[in-house]
């Protein structure tokens, strides 16, 4: 596609110094040490870290300066996990109290983000007041912000002043004609502006903001919502351009749209992409860009590890009753980070043991799985669903609320996505719905040929097998990558991985 609107400048940095080489499967591999240190305990910027570290969002920013067709401003639902939804909006003072309470209770919590429910930079006083207090009171918490970008250029200086090291910009397009199908209006220079003109202004501001952040050395993640038929092909162009401008990571997320959400897309019947469509697009962008595959599209008031939400434990009335000794908590937190960092380093050392450590300068180029190319692959890639915790195969199949999806191939195992499920077995009489939930889970796992879990019951075993998904409980408490590769090699040895795809088509 030809896009005369915004021509990407030639990237100034070459090789790995821009920080976006390497791959999602091994994001850390080719990264400079300094950069690695900046993301290694940020669950949203490092796939490794997300197994161990938690984040929280405080909902201090209710106002927004644009409308997106996937958003409904009547945000007020405790049962929904999706961006823009919150249960209670906090004042900056409340947000600081909540953050300290969570950080003291959950030492894994390393990152505080402000992500809405509106746009943080459309609420600059509330957002920056929260940051100002936290950087004084909790210097061990990383601060980050997620924005639509419209007001970003005017706030870059202040972001840098508050030591905000990570900024996420949602960029769904670089072409105003595409943008006009995503954004009905923006508020700009004291006017509401509609249609293509609005999209053009928004796109210009986003790109300018991205450039300004990169120029200041702030890490930028770009989020894009994949909207089938609207920006799907276009996102490849977006990925190429934001990479060229120095974005660190690109996170393509599937559109969430149901009529009951009351959004334009939900009501008008715009469909969401399938997991296979999402993966295909992420794969297509990956040649150009470091792709994020572990995003869980959390709420603007989420608390906990990605994929879990402990927000209910930290409602304002509960927080008011807590006594927090943050000085003491910081010691516990530091000890925890040290322990995990040692574990991670050991894990990385094991993963890279066969490679020569004597070439620290050369970026490690990770080859992607050759797809149907001339040189015969040793065995086709296989998608495996994993009931995981802390990077291990560690959850009982029936208790899993989500499955990580890994693609195992001759080149190794890499995370390519996740699938949400309902735990169908809670171990008591509420299991009545078990059967129905199990069927749903099996449907959700479509495309996967193996499911790795710590244990699994007799009945689901049979049903999974019948659906062409091989359950495997033999690798409990092993690191995911090792377990997945062991199973892949078993399949290879058993002759199950001939180049031509099997009945279960890889998503």
């Amino acid at each position: 596609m030809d896009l005369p609107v915004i021509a990407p400048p030639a990237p100034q940095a070459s090789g790995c110094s821009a920080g976006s080489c390497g791959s999602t499967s091994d994001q850390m591999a080719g990264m400079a040490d300094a950069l690695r240190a900046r993301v290694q305990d940020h669950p949203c910027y490092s796939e490794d870290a997300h197994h161990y570290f938690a984040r929280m969002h405080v909902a201090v920013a209710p106002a927004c300066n644009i409308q997106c067709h996937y958003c409904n401003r009547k945000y007020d639902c405790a049962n929904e996990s999706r961006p823009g939804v919150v249960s209670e909006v906090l004042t900056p003072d409340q947000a600081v109290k909540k953050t300290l309470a969570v950080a003291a209770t959950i030492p894994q919590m390393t990152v505080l983000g402000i992500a809405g429910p509106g746009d943080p930079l459309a609420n600059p006083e509330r957002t920056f007041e929260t940051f100002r207090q936290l950087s004084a009171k909790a210097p061990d918490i990383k601060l980050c912000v997620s924005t639509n970008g419209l007001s970003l250029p005017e706030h870059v200086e202040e972001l840098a002043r508050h030591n905000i090291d990570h900024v996420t910009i949602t960029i769904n397009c670089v072409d105003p004609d595409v943008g006009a199908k995503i954004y009905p209006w923006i508020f700009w220079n004291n006017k509401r502006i509609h249609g293509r003109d609005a999209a053009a202004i928004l796109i210009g501001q986003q790109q300018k903001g991205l450039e300004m952040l990169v120029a200041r050395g702030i890490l930028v993640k770009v989020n894009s919502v994949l909207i089938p038929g609207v920006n799907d092909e276009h996102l490849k162009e977006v990925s190429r351009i934001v990479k060229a401008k120095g974005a660190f990571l690109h996170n393509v997320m599937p559109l969430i749209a149901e009529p009951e959400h009351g959004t334009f897309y939900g009501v008008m019947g715009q469909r969401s992409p399938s997991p296979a469509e999402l993966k295909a697009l992420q794969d297509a962008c990956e040649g150009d860009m470091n792709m994020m595959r572990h995003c869980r599209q959390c709420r603007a008031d989420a608390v906990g590890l990605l994929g879990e939400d402990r927000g209910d434990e930290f409602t304002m009335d509960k927080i008011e009753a807590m006594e927090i000794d943050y000085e003491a908590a910081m010691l516990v937190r530091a000890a925890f980070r040290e322990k995990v960092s040692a574990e991670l380093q050991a894990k990385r050392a094991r993963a890279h043991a066969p490679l020569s450590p004597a070439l620290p300068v050369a970026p490690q180029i990770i080859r992607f799985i050759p797809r149907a190319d001339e040189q015969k692959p040793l065995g086709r890639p296989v998608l495996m669903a994993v009931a995981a915790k802390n990077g291990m195969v560690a959850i009982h199949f029936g208790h899993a609320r989500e499955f990580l999806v890994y693609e195992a191939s001759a080149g190794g195992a890499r995370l390519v996505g996740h699938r949400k499920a309902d735990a169908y077995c809670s171990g008591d009489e509420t299991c009545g719905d078990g059967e129905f939930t199990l069927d749903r889970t099996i449907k959700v796992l479509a495309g996967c040929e193996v499911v790795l879990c710590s244990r699994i019951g007799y009945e689901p075993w049979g049903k999974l097998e019948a659906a062409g998904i091989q359950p495997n409980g033999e690798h409990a408490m092993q690191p995911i990558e090792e377990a997945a590769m062991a199973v892949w090699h078993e399949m290879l040895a058993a002759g199950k991985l001939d180049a031509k795809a099997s009945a279960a088509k890889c998503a």
Partner: protein
Amino acid sequence: MALEIIESCVNCWACLPLCPSRAIHEARPPQFPHFLIDADKCTECVGDFADPQCVAICPIEGAIVDELGVAMNPPGSLTGIPPERWAAAQAEIAAR
């Protein structure tokens, strides 16, 4: 002349800092469940801006009305969802 914010307001704060007359009060439940405009102070931004600022940023159709009770942002004008389509979707959800 003055505008009025009615109960469909979602308390998103967007309007409050924009008002040149400082006529908007934040919600203080239970007495004031949503943001309110002080009719004595509201000038509808005449002399300050071409458009009333609260109306220009409010994301909720129908939440701000004029003195005759007419919606400043009528149904469909902000979301782009045709009102009949909205009604059909609601009916379909209710029938589930």
